[in-house]
């Protein structure tokens, strides 16, 4: 680890006109870009994320948020005002990370400048007294040691070397700071990618029932739920249409899903519709958007023949209730039923709807409240009939998957008889002679269609981030110096021209293995000298 501390204070005693505003700004900036501030902000960021996991979040699970509002009617609005259900978009969360990133930029820019300078500068001259360094040794060179030869040994080991007279200075491990800067810069790039995605991205969710007549085309209106980034207009959505041809799901005997696959026809409106298939883990990737498979279920086909003998068929997706065997619930409404053919008058009190469950594998005997298996081994609907005003004309938007309970409680919509189990092909005759027939089901899937620009940038940034991180954590900055000294003539050394080589080493980052490395380096220099001499003697 480098011993980087809070930035050095400004040189003391520099004559400066005291401008209080400027001084305050400068001080605040220095505070903001200090390591301590970064630490505090990092800590705050971690703490601030906790409510995002404790409270349900709108972006993740809006139903749970609604549930929370129902369970805690007093507390929930308060929390909502504080952004508790949208923590990661809240003012305070944003404030923390924006401050952190400002601090980050303020921290890395000057370091980049310094590092670029360091990269261009040469390793510094040897300190006078090498023996003061953490690593130090003196070796007797058998022959007149040549600083250039020592430099060559170091260069082979990828040290940056400079020779000054009888001195060799070398430094290694610039990768540490390079990696650190790359790492911090790519953090900024990741944030930019996030920003791009939220400005220019869009997504929509919907349910798609199999069959050509149910195909959907990519427009804002076709989504049950959609959100467009602030820089996206609904006319910007790319044009394509999607038809679900088939859906294939396999389950283990235990009921655990094993395999899903949706087969679709894609028409990108360039002339030739094409077939494609996708599944969980392998989305359908179109040029302009990706289509993800989120879930699946069944849409019972129900045929209602009214008392005037006119029939209507409706394919209504029943939503899964969350149980693994795909017990589903829904409503088939026939608001246009029982229109007197004589008068052509629509009597709102004669509308009809069926509410209940769909069980892909109904049990042999009652209660018929849940399915026994997720595939259709004994498909059946369990329905209750209602007649009266469905409340669809009141202009209040209601769910197509539920009856309007207000109509029921106000008595405008009345239950007729008891609930009834219908297998495929079975017909139920109601009190007024009208009938309901259960014809079978079609599969449906739930989809998320998404365009997320910025993802490539984020991916690249993440790769750089990792590389930089490793460089930063594992590279080690260190310096060594070699000084060639002529042997003391008084020592009476027999070989003329022999010399002493003094070596010193300084790890600039904590480096437990530095002693070993230094020893190896010194040995290499010594061996190289010997080899050199042998070579020379050989020639002679």
């Amino acid at each position, binding site marked *: 680890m480098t011993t980087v501390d809070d930035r050095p204070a400004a040189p003391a005693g520099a004559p400066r006109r005291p401008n209080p505003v400027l001084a305050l700004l400068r001080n605040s900036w220095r505070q903001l870009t200090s390591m301590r501030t970064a*630490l505090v902000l990092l800590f705050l960021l*971690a703490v601030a994320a906790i409510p995002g996991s404790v409270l349900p979040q709108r972006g993740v699970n809006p139903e749970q948020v609604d549930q929370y509002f129902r369970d805690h009617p007093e507390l929930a609005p308060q929390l909502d005002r504080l952004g508790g259900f949208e923590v990661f978009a809240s003012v305070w969360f944003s404030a923390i990370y924006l401050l952190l990133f400002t601090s980050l930029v303020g921290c890395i820019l000057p370091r980049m400048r310094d590092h670029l300078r360091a990269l261009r500068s040469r390793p510094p001259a040897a300190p006078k007294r090498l023996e003061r360094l953490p690593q130090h040794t003196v070796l007797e060179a058998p022959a007149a040691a040549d600083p250039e030869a020592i430099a060559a040994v170091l260069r082979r080991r990828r040290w940056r070397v400079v020779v000054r007279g009888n001195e060799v200075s070398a430094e290694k491990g610039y990768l540490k700071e390079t990696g650190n800067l790359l790492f911090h810069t790519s953090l900024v790039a990741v944030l930019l990618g996030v920003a791009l995605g939220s400005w220019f991205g869009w997504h929509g969710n919907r349910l798609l029932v199999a069959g050509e007549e149910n195909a959907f085309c990519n427009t804002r209106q076709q989504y049950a739920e959609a959100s467009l980034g602030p820089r996206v207009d609904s006319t910007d959505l790319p044009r394509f249409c999607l038809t679900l041809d088939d859906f294939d799901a396999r389950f283990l005997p235990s009921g655990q*899903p094993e*395999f899903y696959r949706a087969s679709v026809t894609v028409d990108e409106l360039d002339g030739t519709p094409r077939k494609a298939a996708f599944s969980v*883990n392998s989305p359908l990737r179109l040029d302009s958007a990706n289509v993800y498979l989120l879930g699946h279920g069944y849409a019972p086909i129900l045929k209602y023949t009214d008392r005037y003998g006119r029939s209507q068929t409706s394919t209504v997706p029943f939503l899964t209730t969350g149980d693994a065997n795909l017990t589903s619930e829904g409503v088939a409404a026939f608001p246009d039923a029982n229109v007197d053919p004589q008068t052509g008058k629509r009597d709102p009190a004669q509308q009809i709807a069926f509410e209940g469950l769909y069980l892909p594998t109904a049990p042999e005997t009652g209660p018929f409240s849940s399915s026994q298996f997720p595939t259709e081994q004994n498909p059946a609907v369990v329905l209750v009939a209602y007649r009266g005003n469905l409340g669809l004309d009141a202009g209040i938007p209601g769910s197509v998957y539920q009856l309007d309970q207000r109509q029921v409680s106000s008595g405008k919509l009345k239950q007729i008889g008891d609930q009834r189990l219908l297998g495929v092909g079975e017909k139920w005759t109601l009190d007024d002679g009208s009938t309901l027939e259960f014809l079978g089901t079609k599969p449906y899937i739930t989809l998320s269609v998404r365009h997320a620009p910025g993802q490539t940038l*984020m991916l690249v940034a993440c790769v750089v*981030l*990792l590389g930089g991180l490793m460089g930063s954590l594992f590279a080690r900055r260190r310096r060594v110096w070699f000084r060639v000294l002529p042997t003391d003539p008084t020592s009476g050394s027999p070989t003329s021209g022999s010399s002493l080589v003094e070596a010193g080493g300084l790890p600039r980052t904590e480096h437990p293995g530095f002693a070993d490395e230094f020893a190896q380096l010194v040995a290499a220099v010594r061996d190289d000298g010997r080899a050199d001499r042998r070579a020379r003697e050989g020639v002679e």
Partner: protein
Amino acid sequence: MAELSDQLVTFAILAYLVAMISHAVEYALGNARAVSAKAPARELVGAGVGAPGDTVTAPAAPTADEVRTARTARRAELAGRIAAGVTVVAAAIHLGAVVTRGIAADRMPWGNMYEFVLTVTWIGTAAWLAVLAKRPSLRRLGLFLSLVMVLLLAFAELKLYVEVVPLMPALQSYWFIIHVSTIIFASGIFLLGIVPAVTFLMRNGYEQGRRSFPYTLARRLPAAAGLERLTFTLHAFSFPIFTFSVIAGAIWAEAAWGRAWGWDPKETWAFISWVVYAGYLHARATPSVKRNVATWIAVLGFLTVLMNLFGVNFFFSGLHSYAGVE
């Protein structure tokens, strides 16, 4: 195969228990004077130099007391060696349990929390043995490691156990292997890292003269500086792996759920852990932050990892809810 795996887990727990007891014996017999004189010396000599116990200085004329001390020291040494040997055996049995579980399930044995804990603890032990091979002087930490293993494995067996089942479709992807294997690996190292972190905090207090309860336990521990360095090395090693696995998770989530990052509770807590560990590395690089403060941050980081592993599965529901606790 599944039953074999279950039996092996039980045996592994027993073996860790034996290792723990031997370590405890070593600890109890350990001669405080010899240790405190020895440990720093070995620290200076450097990693892995010389077998443990070879720095005992020969007294000029052994008194009866000294003879007794020497005998106790020899016994402690023996207990320590036995403990290390039993840990190797325990790790082998443990590995057998993981592998047979994988064979029984016909997939990587990381499909639910039980299997996850089983594998994470094995990584922790294996990494510990690697550390021990390099730095035998740290052997006494084995007491704390085996304690952690016994606790976690027993918890897994009692509270998390589930029958072998195949993977759900959302988990059938090679990203599953990449994401989960790296997260397990990183978690295993973080798990191991907590041992020197906590012992450092105790030992550091002890060296600063504290003599109250948890600190006195540290009397026979290796020197604080070495523990701190090991803590850092382990965390610096696993942090990039953890980072990678979070990124891999995001790539996988993009394919499986249609968004790379959605602040689902698991993701949120992974983010929290990542930020806390980044905070640890920062704190350690800032000289004005004391080493014990930095180490506390690492401990906090591990608590967030635990929270993600257990807390999130038990308290929250999210897309990651197939973790399989019945």
